[in-house]
């Protein structure tokens, strides 16, 4: 992305939480920012990369991004890294020792929890990391707060020499609100890196001496939380129920119960126990509204503060007004508000692969092959588990397709003795955490056929660059990984490595079928770009000749969203079997001519569209 002229100080801008954090990072004089893309955190770094005077990078994974930020903070500069919630699992190894060394330059880690599972494999509560790693957690509720708390977090981090977690959720990251922005203040560290092995080299002896210091710091942080203006009380007028809430849940409480007393936790770890105890004494019932785990609630109960929380509220998903209002009405013995109109029953509309996506060829092919188990991974290609392919059997975490495939191979029972094991992984996921797994398969003699789908982008998060496509975060040329050479150097035999075009179905089918028969590790690399990035070149679109379509439905099995069934007809075959014919049309205005549907069409009913005539939309 090209650098833009930042909006002047005092501008009032409509910013998402991610954009607000990016602005604050820049204004704080941060020198280094690093991340791996992940919904809903991605835009933070994307936007930071458009600001001047700050180095930003897409790192290969979240752990590396945190380590880059740690190095910069050790060097005395301000640094930032961000990730989605599951990214922190990867980065936590570094965090758990970083808490012992602490930092010199301010270090802020923004973690975006996907509460409500908009695009994630699980729903987890990153506030736990604050407790686990003994570091402070700030929780903004909207864009303005995200902006302000990011700036405060840098100052706080530097003052107490501790990394600060900025805990966000989808309902801040992706909500736009008005933010009044300020000036950038440069932050130069004149001293440079100070050699201090007792602090920076964490041997058992060194770490043993730092642990008591961490506990001392806990006391200081707790005292800070007790007096922090980020933890504020709105005394309200209706004392029947008082609330302790943080993040967007606080907004929902204020919206739902405008007269209720509310203690807002902005600095939520360590919790300001005495402040909450005093607040609890002023209300008849105390309800803790937190997304998603009963974390504050459990700590309060352990401290002998009587409260309710997950006993009356759900443990999953967002605590929006339509959840809170009935729960509190019930608590007060009031009539539960009539729940409104019920939604009309409408078919689901799950996400699909794009028109002409190169993965379509891969899954169309895998769906034709019998007696296989397919270990999948995190990315657009996870959608291969869906219709019409049903060609992906497991998904756990980034890079897990490799180890799980090896485990499926080594752990197979007699029922699976003839099963072929495949793994499917994308280019960026492979570089993130898949390489180590492949090395493990090679080293331990696994019998796995790996499909490495190289589409030259981090597709699911919007086509970000990575070391596999030869561009850095600014779009500048960068060294490009040669996947064939890389897997060969990990020990895959040269004759077991194939690079194939996923749009050429017969070759793809033959390569996969041949390789799964060979009882050793093979890697089949597909090499066509994601259709959402500039590397993709559209071809001439297709249309269906109605008179030639026999309704066989072979093209429908490709799964391209530009192919529509416009008529169904039941016929009895000579064998007496009833089959349903599916007559199709192609949405020519959406087709980009990948040619995948043409290949299984026996009657040659799919031809290039006549572009001299106006394109008509398919009518249903």
């Amino acid at each position, binding site marked *: 992305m090209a650098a833009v002229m930042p909006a002047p100080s005092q501008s009032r801008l409509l910013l998402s939480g991610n954009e607000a954090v990016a602005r604050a990072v820049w204004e704080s004089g941060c020198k280094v920012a690093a991340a791996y893309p992940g919904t809903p955190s991605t835009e933070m770094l994307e936007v930071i990369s458009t600001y001047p005077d700050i180095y930003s990078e897409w790192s290969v994974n979240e752990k590396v991004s945190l380590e880059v930020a740690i190095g910069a903070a050790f060097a005395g500069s301000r640094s930032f890294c961000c990730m989605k919630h599951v990214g922190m699992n990867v980065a936590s190894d570094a965090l758990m020792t970083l808490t012992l060394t602490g930092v010199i330059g301010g270090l802020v880690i923004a973690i975006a929890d996907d509460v409500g599972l908009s695009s994630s494999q699980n729903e987890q509560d990153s506030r736990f990391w604050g407790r686990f790693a003994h570091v402070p957690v700030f929780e903004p509720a909207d864009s303005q707060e995200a902006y302000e708390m990011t700036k405060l977090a840098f100052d706080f981090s530097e003052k107490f020499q501790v990394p600060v977690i900025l805990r966000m959720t989808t309902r801040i990251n992706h909500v736009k609100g008005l933010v009044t922005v300020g000036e950038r203040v440069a932050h130069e560290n004149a001293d440079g890196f100070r050699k201090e092995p007792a602090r920076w080299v964490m041997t058992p002896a060194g770490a043993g001496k730092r642990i008591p210091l961490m506990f001392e710091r806990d006391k200081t942080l707790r005292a800070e939380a007790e007096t922090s203006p980020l933890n504020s009380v709105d005394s309200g007028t209706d004392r029947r129920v008082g609330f302790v809430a943080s993040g967007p849940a606080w907004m929902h409480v204020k919206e739902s119960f405008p007269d209720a007393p509310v203690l807002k936790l902005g600095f939520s770890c360590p919790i300001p126990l005495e402040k909450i105890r005093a607040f609890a004494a002023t209300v008849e019932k105390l309800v803790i509204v937190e997304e998603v785990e009963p974390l504050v609630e459990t700590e309060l109960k352990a401290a002998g503060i009587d409260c309710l929380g997950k006993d009356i509220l759900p443990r999953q998903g967002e605590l929006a007004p339509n959840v809170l209002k009935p729960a509190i009405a019930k608590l007060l013995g009031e009539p539960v508000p009539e729940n409104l109109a019920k939604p009309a029953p409408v*078919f689901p509309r799950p996400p699909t692969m794009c028109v002409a996506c190169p993965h379509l060829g891969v899954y169309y092919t895998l769906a034709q092959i019998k007696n296989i188990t397919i270990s999948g991974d995190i990315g657009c290609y996870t959608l291969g588990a869906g219709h019409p392919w049903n060609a992906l059997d497991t998904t756990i975490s980034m890079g897990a397709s490799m180890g799980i495939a090896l485990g499926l191979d080594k752990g197979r029972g007699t029922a699976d003795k003839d099963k072929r094991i495949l793994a499917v992984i994308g280019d960026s996921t492979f570089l993130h955490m898949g390489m180590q797994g492949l090395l493990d398969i090679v080293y331990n003699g696994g019998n796995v056929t790996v499909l490495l789908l190289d589409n030259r982008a981090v597709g699911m998060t919007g086509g970000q660059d990575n070391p596999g496509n030869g561009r850095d975060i600014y779009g500048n040329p960068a060294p490009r990984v040669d996947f064939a050479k890389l897997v060969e150097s990990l020990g895959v035999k040269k004759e077991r490595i194939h690079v194939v075009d996923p749009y050429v179905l017969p070759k793809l089918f033959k390569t996969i079928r041949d390789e799964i028969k060979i009882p050793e590790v093979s890697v089949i690399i597909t090499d066509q770009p994601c259709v959402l990035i500039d590397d993709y070149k559209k071809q001439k679109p297709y249309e269906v000749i109605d008179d030639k379509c026999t309704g066989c439905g072979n093209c429908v099995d490709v799964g391209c969203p530009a192919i529509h069934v416009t008529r169904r007809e039941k016929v009895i075959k000579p064998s007496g079997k009833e089959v349903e014919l599916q007559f199709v049309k192609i949405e020519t205005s959406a087709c980009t001519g990948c040619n995948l549907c043409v290949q299984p069409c026996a009657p040659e009913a799919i031809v290039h569209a006549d572009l001299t005539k106006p394109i008509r939309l398919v009518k249903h």
Partner: protein
Amino acid sequence: MPDSNITNILVVGIGGQGVMTATEILAEAAIALGHDVKKTEVAGMAQRGGVVSSHLRFGPRVLSPQIMPGTADLLVAFEAAEGMRWCHMLRPGGLVLMNTARLVPPVVDIGLYDYPEDPLAEIKSRGYQLHAFDAMEIALSLGDVRLGNTVMLGAMADHLPFPAGVLLESILKRFRARKPQMVELNQKAFEAGRAAEKAAQHEEETA
């Protein structure tokens, strides 16, 4: 009860139709008039043909960004079945502005689910007002199906608590900055959407 000072507009459709951009333009118009604004989406994998619903709330001060079911003042549906899916979000008797185009997902094409027979009748049977027109055909007749979201913005123009000119200016400002060659065409799309909605309203009232 919903705060009467807050206007709640829900814009729904499918990833790739420009729902989020349309709502953002609407938000900019509200900001230009001095409102506080919050805009939020439920857009799982928005670029992947999934459901997109964009909530816009504006007024003196907006807290929660989400519209409660049964409290939306206006529902703008970029697709027929999506209008039906979300109509329960409207306040009783509320207004739906709808593009009648049917965008059929693969799960319907392969026969796992049926597309609702008559989403328009279903919406009306629930007591909502409905003004429906084919925004995609209008966009295509102007030469580019991507003008659909400007057509839909034009259709909203006479149902907002501010003058249509403010909304049009928000659209044109955006194109002047990014694609000046598209300014005139977008103005046409806006007016065409506005006219189509008026005609649909007239049809409903005289039916």
